[in-house]
């Protein structure tokens, strides 16, 4: 060694095995969720989506507090006003109602319907998918045939029937969307559970005598949360869109109630003379769809187990 002289003998004193902390953990504690957030953060589009959803969500809740009107009172003297005067930021509609109020109220209703529908999706889809995948065999076969039958009926027919039976309203629409919406969710959960149920940690729980309920609730479902969340973020925009579609063809909420779909449908009638009636709600709808899809993409990259090492 050429650098001998720079070392002093005391450096060569034996100190033995240093690692009294031999069992110290190598890695810093990065939780599963924090890890996912770190990945999500890297996706600029997803962050933009999250920002837009938050902005629209806040406006849907607090927007109506900003000016002094409300969503249903009419003022026939100022119909179809397309400029922002007197605090009518978005102008007024054909019946002289404040469009700012109606757009945010409508956005709130649309979001509520969507969240409610997706919530029902998750409850039904996870239960049925989980049971089907976990028990497999005959149980699975029966459930899958049942799902195929439901799925083979055009969902518009089911929805029309349901809406005829129930009073049109937020619940009716949410339930009708969820009636068929849970099927993809149950398929995702079933596929995941089918894959996970032969994992060794599930076998270990079985050898310890764990009940089916315990295995499903403690071991399987918590490990399917990632794919469920991803599916949810993609289901929300499609539920919003579907609500709009139903309202547009007259099966959803009826005016003077407002939702983004109702507003677009109404605005459609005045498209040539007062396009602002259509433009405002349509813009909010488009931004929502775009934003949720961006979030979904980001979450998929962040939570997809295949991306992990």
């Amino acid at each position: 060694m050429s650098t001998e002289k720079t070392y002093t003998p005391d450096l060569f004193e034996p100190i033995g095995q240093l690692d009294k902390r031999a069992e110290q953990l190598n890695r810093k504690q990065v939780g599963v969720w924090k890890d996912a957030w770190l990945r999500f953060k890297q996706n600029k589009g997803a962050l933009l989506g999250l920002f837009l959803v938050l902005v629209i969500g806040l406006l849907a809740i607090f927007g109506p507090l900003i000016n002094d009107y409300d969503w249903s009172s009419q003022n026939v003297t100022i119909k179809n006003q397309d400029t922002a005067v007197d605090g009518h930021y978005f102008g007024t509609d054909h019946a002289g109602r404040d469009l700012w109020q109606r757009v945010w109220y409508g956005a709130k209703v649309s979001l509520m319907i969507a969240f409610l529908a997706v919530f029902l999706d998750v409850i039904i889809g996870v239960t049925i998918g989980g049971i089907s995948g976990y028990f497999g065999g005959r149980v699975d076969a029966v459930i899958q045939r049942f799902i195929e039958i439901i799925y083979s009926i055009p969902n518009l027919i089911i929805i029309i029937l349901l809406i005829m039976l129930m009073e049109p309203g937020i619940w009716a629409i949410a339930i009708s969307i969820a009636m068929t919406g849970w099927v993809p969710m149950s398929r995702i959960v079933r596929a995941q559970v089918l894959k996970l149920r032969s994992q060794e940690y599930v076998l270990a729980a079985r050898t310890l005598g764990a009940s089916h309920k315990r295995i499903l609730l403690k071991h399987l479902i918590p490990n399917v949360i990632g794919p469920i969340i991803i599916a949810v973020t993609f289901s929300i925009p499609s539920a919003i869109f579907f609500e709009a579609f139903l309202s547009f063809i007259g099966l959803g909420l009826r005016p003077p109630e407002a939702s983004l779909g109702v507003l677009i449908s109404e605005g459609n009638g005045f498209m040539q003379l007062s396009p602002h009636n259509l433009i405002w709600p349509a813009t909010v709808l488009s931004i929502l769809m775009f934003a949720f899809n961006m979030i979904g993409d980001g979450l998929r990259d962040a939570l997809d187990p295949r991306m992990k090492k």
Partner: protein
Amino acid sequence: MSATEKKEPILSVKNVKKHFQVGGKKILKAVDGISFDIYPGETLGLVGESGCGKSTVGRTLIRLYNATSGEVSFKGKNVHELKGKELKQLNRSMQMIFQDPYASLNPRMKVMDIIAEGIDIHGLNGKKREDRVIELLETVGLNKSHATRFPHEFSGGQRQRIGIARALAVEPDFIIADEPISALDVSVQAQVVNLMKKLQRERGLTYLFIAHDLSMVKYISDRVGVMYLGNLVELADSDEMYDNPLHPYTQALLSAVPIADPSLKNERERVILKGDVPSPIDPPSGCKFRTRCPQAMDICASTIPEWKEIKEKHFVACHLYN
């Protein structure tokens, strides 16, 4: 081994078969009639190549699979007929350690909850749950600070020890170790093996040690059984097995193990088997090994060799010894 003398077996396997139905009418005979006993306090090694059915044997013993036929009796009771309280008792006294340290711990549970699972299921409230978990962590060489962590923060060897702590939580007498070290690095394998031996000394545990690493199996086991395509072909004390293998398959298997000593390179005579293991869906007639056996005779194709005790405590199924 003194452990095997004059004692009643803790586990007795009689002609157990486990067949799986694969794709329609085809039947995969993963385990096709095997019998052996395990005595209290001993370690029985079970070796064989992938697909020979050794893991299926372990899983059938602990009821993860139902046996197609045959009987597994544990402490005098047929495990496949247990119900209710007796079944709970079995779940406590027979436990399993798994192969893949990355798949055998639930990634969404904290180490505390993973280890305490058995305590929760069986309502073992003798001590405070937390104290018990800490005690178990210390038994396997970890400590209190690890209890609040998630599995992904641990190395392979540490995870494997957490898996051992989970099994120990219900105070079993018999542990099936299904390839517990094959996914670990060499230096870490020794940590796990030493721990298993220590636990055996201190708690009088009985092990069924399933593995494909023959040198490690020899080191840890009192007796060794060799499997080929769903059958046991040879069973003997481990020194006897390694010094004096009788079955041609055992001989080939032993000679194929690479030895980490270059000076022996040219001294050893190797039997290199030709071809691959046949499919267990459509195994050869007679002796299943005959298609690769360097000493196959006519009778091997027509008759299944009998499982016989050739020498004291040395069983083999081969026509060469008839």
